[in-house]
Structure formats: structure tokens, C-alpha cells
């Protein structure tokens, strides 16, 4: 085989977390011999985020022990602790906040997301108000949990907020969870499992308040003292964790001419970024939480996924395509998957549960704390969620990949009479406190419009 024409030159990867790291490894694995630079805003080498809201907050793992193992050496220049501040697509340069310019032949954008802050900046600065996205955030909050707060308020009952509430209960800390939507996790899993999650939280002693917003965080002498709710009630709390979802780190691309906005950086199925006219670029690639890409299983709607597995899979495809000539490129078609552990249960998902009109309880039941819910859209299977039944998900993944008819046949059910499908009750994300971790964002790559939510 002739030598790949694209295995030399300069590649810059902006974002030194999971996606950036796996892309760098894949580039070297597949024969890239040129100059490789990784830029990371945080001063730390790549680390794993999922343990932060679980073992780290439980106090079982130290926050500085969550570093990621490498698959291989990447022989890269690591520029850590410096933010990318701009992109010059004509001059093919990344601009760094320290004034440095990094020229590139091909660029990978893997800048991910950050925690959505509390909208009132003064209240957000109160001692006792936290977000959890980075290892430093988790370290500070774990210390505060060690000190034994009297009550923790968690604002937003998505996966992050629910996991933090679970940690509080496991540590014997009183916790109030406030969620504007009708139930926890409802933005990701729909109404039926949202009801299950609400019962689960209450059974574990969480003071769960749905259908309310936090109207104010109160402080005294710079310290958080409590919060007021939209229903007129108030609580005393010495810690508040803001879990309102994520904001995509795309501001540095505002003048780049790319299709980058609050919903991410739009790219094609091969991870190539679109410009603002919807024209695909050939030297700028995107991977991980910041990417917005079309998926054929979901009618080619643009998807944004804040998932560990997507960061890995998309980074591998992006890296392969960065050094492969056109006919050898691969599409990123992986079925979305994620997990969460909370209140002693293992929750796993395949497909996109919010891309559904109906859901059926295919196995188990909420009562036994073990179940599989299967989601369908217009008569085909589009997702499945298991609670303590992970071994079954492979079966449903195949159904999703083959667009199997919904509801699924009785072979997969453990009862003689399978349950009847019910509406999946996926709420409009704008009525929720927690941001959805999966966002279907329509069909148009260059569409920048989005609803800017006042928060709370």
C-alpha cells in the first residue's frame, strides 16, 4: 500500500480530556508521524470525570487519583493550564490565552463542556455554593461533605444532581433536591422512569421537591445560609450544589466562521466540522461532548451527547479520518450508551430514550428494583434502559441497530403477559432544571438558534 499522504504534518488537539487523549493515541496507533500538540485549560493531565460524583464525593477515592491510564505513549507536546482563545481558519492557527499561536495542518476540537453556573453571580460566589465538573470542584465539595454539613441543597435532578443526592444520603447527610420538571431524570428517561426515580429518592430519605424553582440563594457574611423556592417555602442549607446541566465550550470559536454555538460545533458523520454556511471543512474535526453530529438511527437529526462512551468512540473515528484519505474514512455510527449508579442501583441506557413516543416495561418491575424499559418511536425500537439488568442491553442494542418493531416481541419479556406500551412522556427540555445529557438538535448543521434559558 502506498504511504498515507496525511500521516505527516502538524496536528493540534484542543481539549486534553478523554476525547483529546484517545484521539492522540489513535493518531499514533494508525501511523501519524508528525508533530502533535494537546492543549488543555486545566493544569492536570487527562483524568476521568465519572468517579467525581460517585467515589470521590463518597470520600473513597481522592480527587487527584482519578487520572486516566494511557493506551500508549503519544509523543506529544502537552500545553496544560492554558486556554484556547481563538481560531484563525485562514491562517490555520489556534490562538492561546497566553498570546501564543499554534499553527496546524489539521485541528481536532474536543473542548467539551463546563458546568452551567448559578445565574445570580453574587449568590454563586457565596461560600458553600458549588458546581461539579472538574477534579478541583469535586475535591472542594468532598472536603465540605467530610466536614458534615447540616443540609445540602441540590438544584437540578438530572444524572449529576441525582448522583450527588445519592452520595449525600449514603454519607448520612440531609439533602433537599429541587427540580423544576415533574421528576428526577425525566429529561433523559421520560415520565415512567422519572416516576420510579422520584420514588427511589424519597425512599432513601431525599427531600425531593419537583415542580419548583429556587428563586434565591440566601447568604450571611459571605456564607450560604439557605434558599427560597417559587412555592414560597424556604430551607436552611449550608451547601448548595448547582446541577443545571452543561454549557458547551464554544465561545472561543465565535469568530472562527465555524457552525459553533450553544448547542456545540456541528460536524458531519465523519467528524469534520461545518462552517457557518453549512459547508463541511476538511482540516477541522470535532469529537466528544462539544460535537453535534447527524445520526442515521435517529433520522439524521444532529445529536449532542455528554457521554463517556461517545467521547471515546467519536475521538477514534475523528483521529482515523484526520489521517485517512477520503475513501478510507469511517462514519461515527455508534449507538449512544451511558450508565449512572445511584441509590445502590446500576442504571444503563442504549439508544436515545428521548427519541420516542412510547415506552414499555419489557422486564422486571419498579417494585423489585430491577427492570428493562424499552422505548419506541413510530413503531420501531429506539432505546432501552436497564436498572440492575445490564446483561440484557446487548439484546436491545441489536434491536435498535436493526430498527426492530416496537413493542418488542414476547421473547424478551419475563412475564407471560408483557406490559402494554404507554406514552414515554418526554418533556420539553425548557421546563426542566437539569439540562438533558442527550440533545436532539434538529437537522440543520448551521442552525445557531437556541433557547437561552434564564436558569433556576
Amino acid at each position, binding site marked *: 500500500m502506498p504511504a498515507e499522504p496525511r500521516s505527516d504534518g502538524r496536528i493540534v488537539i484542543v481539549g486534553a480530556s478523554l476525547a483529546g487523549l484517545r484521539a492522540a493515541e489513535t493518531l499514533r496507533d494508525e501511523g501519524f508521524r508528525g508533530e502533535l500538540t494537546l492543549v488543555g485549560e486545566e493544569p492536570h*493531565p487527562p483524568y*476521568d470525570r465519572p468517579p467525581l460524583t460517585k467515589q470521590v464525593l463518597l470520600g473513597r477515592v481522592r480527587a487527584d487519583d482519578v*487520572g486516566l*491510564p494511557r493506551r500508549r505513549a503519544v509523543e506529544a507536546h*502537552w500545553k*496544560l493550564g492554558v486556554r484556547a482563545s481563538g481560531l484563525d481558519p485562514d491562517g490555520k492557527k489556534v490562538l492561546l490565552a497566553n498570546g501564543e499561536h499554534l499553527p496546524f495542518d489539521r485541528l481536532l476540537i474536543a473542548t467539551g463542556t463546563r458546568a452551567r453556573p448559578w445565574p445570580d453571580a453574587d449568590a454563586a460566589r457565596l461560600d458553600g455554593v458549588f458546581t461539579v465538573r472538574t477534579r478541583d470542584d469535586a475535591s472542594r465539595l468532598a472536603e465540605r461533605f467530610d466536614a458534615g454539613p447540616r443540609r445540602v441543597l441540590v438544584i437540578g435532578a438530572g444524572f449529576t444532581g441525582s448522583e450527588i443526592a445519592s452520595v449525600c444520603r449514603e454519607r448520612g447527610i440531609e439533602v433537599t433536591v429541587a427540580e423544576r420538571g415533574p421528576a428526577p431524570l425525566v429529561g433523559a428517561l421520560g415520565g415512567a422512569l422519572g416516576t420510579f426515580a422520584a420514588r427511589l429518592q424519597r425512599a432513601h430519605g431525599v427531600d425531593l421537591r419537583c415542580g419548583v424553582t429556587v428563586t434565591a440563594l440566601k447568604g450571611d457574611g459571605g456564607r450560604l445560609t439557605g434558599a427560597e423556592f417559587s412555592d414560597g417555602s424556604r430551607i436552611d442549607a449550608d451547601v448548595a450544589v448547582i446541577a443545571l446541566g452543561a454549557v458547551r465550550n464554544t465561545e472561543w470559536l465565535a469568530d472562527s466562521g465555524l457552525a459553533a454555538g450553544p448547542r456545540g460545533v456541528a460536524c458531519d458523520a465523519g467528524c469534520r466540522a461545518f462552517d457557518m454556511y453549512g459547508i463541511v471543512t476538511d482540516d477541522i474535526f470535532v469529537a466528544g461532548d462539544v460535537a453535534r453530529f447527524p445520526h442515521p438511527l435517529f433520522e439524521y437529526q444532529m445529536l449532542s451527547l455528554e457521554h463517556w462512551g461517545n467521547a471515546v468512540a467519536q475521538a477514534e473515528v475523528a483521529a482515523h479520518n484526520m489521517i485517512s484519505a477520503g475513501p478510507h474514512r469511517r462514519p461515527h455510527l455508534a449507538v449512544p450508551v451511558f450508565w449512572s449508579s445511584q441509590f445502590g442501583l446500576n442504571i444503563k441506557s442504549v439508544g436515545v430514550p428521548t427519541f420516542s413516543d412510547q415506552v414499555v416495561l419489557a422486564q422486571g418491575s419498579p417494585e423489585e428494583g430491577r427492570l428493562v424499559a424499552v422505548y419506541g418511536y413510530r413503531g420501531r425500537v429506539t432505546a432501552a434502559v436497564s436498572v440492575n439488568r*445490564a446483561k440484557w442491553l446487548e439484546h436491545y442494542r441489536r434491536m435498535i441497530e436493526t430498527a426492530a418493531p416496537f413493542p418488542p416481541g414476547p421473547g424478551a419479556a419475563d412475564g407471560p403477559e408483557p406490559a402494554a406500551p404507554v406514552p414515554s412522556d418526554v418533556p420539553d427540555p425548557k421546563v426542566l432544571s437539569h439540562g438533558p445529557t442527550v440533545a436532539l438538535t434538529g437537522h440543520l448543521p448551521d442552525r445557531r438558534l437556541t433557547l437561552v434559558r434564564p436558569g433556576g
Partner: protein
Amino acid sequence: MQIVVDLNRCQGYAQCAFLAPQVFALHGEEALAYSPAVPDDQLDRVRKAATACPVQAILVGEQAGADAG
């Protein structure tokens, strides 16, 4: 030495929890919790656990980016 477990792939077979109980433990019936930083005296056990994992979900390796320059 660091580890990361692909918890999408993990199905809770718990072979690792038997082979290296100081590093891996089931949290509830099925959710795996583990210590990402492996103590030196656990390294052999962790390598055995990685080999024995039926779904090959455990990655063992040096800390990424440690050779940062």
C-alpha cells in the same frame, strides 16, 4: 499505575471484585466502584483481574500525559 473501567461494557460479572477486592467492589448488586490509582502491592492482582474480565472492560496503564513537556 492507573486503571479505568469501561462501565458501558461492564456487566457486573464481578470477577475483578474477587481477584482484587481492595481495588474493585460492587456497589449494590451490579454497579462497579473501583480505585483508579492502583497501589503497587495490588498491581499483580489488578492485572489478573483485567485479564479475567469476561467483557474486557478494564484498561491498565501508566498515567496519561505524565511525560508532559
